[in-house]
């Protein structure tokens, strides 16, 4: 059976699960998206070859007992002062929203049923326009997801913490964040995939930032032995601000892709990324920032710590369109190699079609500074502790750019645990 036939069989077999209770809006897009996926996907690419129809669509582990003991401390616990939402296999299972009345977090299916007029303007709007094989696959197989909808002028004070657990072998969740005019929200997503080896998590998050809205989203990923694909697509109106941060601790093959469309004048975005590829893991960050509105600002910083035979990839692109005068855009990718076998491939890229811009881009790949290591040792700090200190310092620079205190502290805590668990 060819790979295409396998996908088709999976699609047909899953039809009952996928189509059964899904809204017509979701179902109407599936078949054509599947065909476009076949047209655009390169089946020589390993990420499309790992599908296993036996495990796909069906829960593999219904509990979290397979999490290694040292990871168990990462289990969900309620956090004071934070709106906590638990999402399991794409469905919201609990939401601590007792204090919140002015905005909703709902399941995707429920949102489309309840707000058809709003949903038709937003659902798959960006994925259709800027489709990739992975987003087409998501549209074809999408089961559920969550929607954060902020009506005009809603300013949220408590950060939203989404504890997102996936245990199925083939997951395609579609999330949306709709921030209308003059709104603000801070979101932190803890994304854990506890599924069999080679499972596929293919998530899409569409973000719509209307004028003067402010959206901050931090996603903390642990894919363990699964393949983790996160596609973020964001459209920004005038004077809107977004800050997206993705930190990936583990995953067999991970791709975090960002597609930022700065359409409105004076819109701003900040993209941050960090990852820790080790033990044969490959973690990629792909970013596209499209400046089409005048006076917009973008700032990108991606930092990776690679160890063992881990592989990292950064492919960043800034495009400044002909109408995007007064653009300020920066892009930086720094990588710290802790072993001789780790590999980093980096390609920062700038395309400028306007004269009135300030742009910079650059990348560095290096090992811990031997002078700094010796300086630490000369003060009594053992070499492995010095390496840990320098690795932490390297990643701390990125954390300083996170404005949300909760997200920053939570991210710092998880990074600290990763650094503690690594043998330098």
């Amino acid at each position, binding site marked *: 059976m060819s790979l295409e036939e396998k996908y088709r069989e999976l699609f047909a077999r899953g039809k009952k699960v996928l189509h059964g209770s899904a809204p017509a809006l979701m179902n109407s897009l599936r078949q054509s998206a599947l065909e476009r996926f076949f047209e655009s996907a390169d089946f020589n690419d390993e990420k499309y070859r790992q599908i296993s129809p036996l495990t796909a669509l069906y829960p593999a582990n219904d509990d979290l007992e397979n999490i290694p003991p040292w990871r168990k401390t990462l289990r969900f616990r309620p956090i004071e002062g934070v709106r906590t939402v638990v999402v399991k296999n794409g469905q919201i299972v609990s939401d601590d929203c007792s204090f919140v009345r002015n905005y909703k977090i709902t399941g995707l299916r429920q949102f489309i049923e309840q707000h058809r007029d709003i949903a038709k303007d937003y659902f798959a709007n960006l994925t259709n326009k800027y489709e990739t094989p992975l987003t087409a696959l998501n549209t074809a197989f999408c089961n559920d997801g969550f929607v954060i909808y902020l009506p005009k002028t809603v300013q949220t004070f408590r950060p939203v913490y989404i504890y997102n657990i996936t245990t199925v072998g083939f997951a395609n969740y579609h999330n949306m964040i709709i921030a209308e005019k003059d709104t603000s929200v801070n979101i932190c997503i803890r994304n854990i995939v506890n599924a069999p080896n080679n499972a596929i998590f293919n998530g899409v998050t569409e973000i719509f930032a209307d004028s003067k809205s402010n959206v901050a989203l931090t996603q903390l990923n642990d894919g363990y032995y699964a393949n983790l694909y996160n596609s973020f697509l964001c459209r920004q109106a005038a004077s809107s601000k977004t800050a997206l941060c993705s930190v990936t601790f583990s995953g067999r093959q991970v791709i975090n892709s960002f597609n930022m469309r700065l359409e409105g004048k004076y819109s701003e975005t900040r993209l941050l990324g960090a990852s820790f590829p080790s033990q044969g893991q490959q973690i990629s960050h792909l970013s596209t920032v499209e400046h089409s509105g005048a006076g917009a600002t973008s700032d990108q910083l991606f930092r990776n710590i690679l160890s063992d035979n881990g592989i990292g990839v950064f492919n960043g692109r800034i495009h400044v369109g002909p109408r995007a005068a007064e653009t300020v855009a920066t892009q930086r990718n720094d990588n710290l190699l802790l072993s001789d076998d780790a590999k980093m491939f980096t390609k920062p890229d700038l395309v400028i079609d306007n004269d009135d811009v300030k742009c910079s881009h650059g990348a560095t790949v290096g090992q811990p500074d031997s*002078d700094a290591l010796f*300086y630490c040792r*000369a*003060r009594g*700090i053992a070499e492995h502790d010095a390496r840990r*200190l320098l690795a932490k310092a390297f990643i701390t620079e990125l954390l300083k750019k996170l404005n949300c205190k909760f997200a920053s502290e939570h991210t710092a805590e998880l990074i600290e645990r990763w650094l503690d668990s690594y043998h330098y």
Partner: protein
Amino acid sequence: MLKIKDLHASINGTEILRGINLQINAGEVHAIMGPNGSGKSTLCNVLVGRPEYAVTMGTVVFKDSDLLTQPPEERARRGLFLSFQSPVEIPGVPVANFLKAAVNERLKFNNRAELAGGQFLKYMHGKEKLLNMPPELINRSVNEGFSGGEKKKSEIFQMAMLEPDLAILDEIDSGLDVDALRNVSDAIGKLKTDTRAMLVITHHCQLLSYVRPNFVHVLSKGRIIRTGGPELAWDIEDKGYDWIQEEKP
């Protein structure tokens, strides 16, 4: 406290130290002067264990133990301190965190209780006060964006925090203006004790007039070619090094 006997060392196959002999006792201050390239910084680097330098002959005994077999961190934990001539910047590591790790390593090595957060802060504030250390320097990353004077002051502050038995000050006076030199010298003066030994590497007498060495050694071509009292430093200031080199057969 420190006994160096016939020390030879090289870097990249080039011999720099060609037979150093030196003994420093507790409470003594020794100064080493010498022309550029004479091996002063190499001696410092060899003593703290910089891996690029290879010791080809000789022995160094520090506090009754063989220094040359110890890794750099063990030398530091035993009480050897080097104030670097050009301290590196370590972005992202606050001075306080760095020093907490260093101080606790030394305490642990000496079988003493490590300092917890509050105790450490109290200890650090005491040293800050003693040396008039600006608190904002402590909250910044180690040496990052520090001026030349701030870097040297930070080195002396680290020395105060670590309370070494032997402090080696490698050109602590280089690049300092008159006021900064006085401040750093005052700070060094406050850290002199009856039990702490110091080895001061310098080109200038001004620093020595503050720290008042017991012995001044002149290093040339990897050997100590003359040893004298503080007056030797003033002779060098007046006449340079040539007359000493010429005197030596």
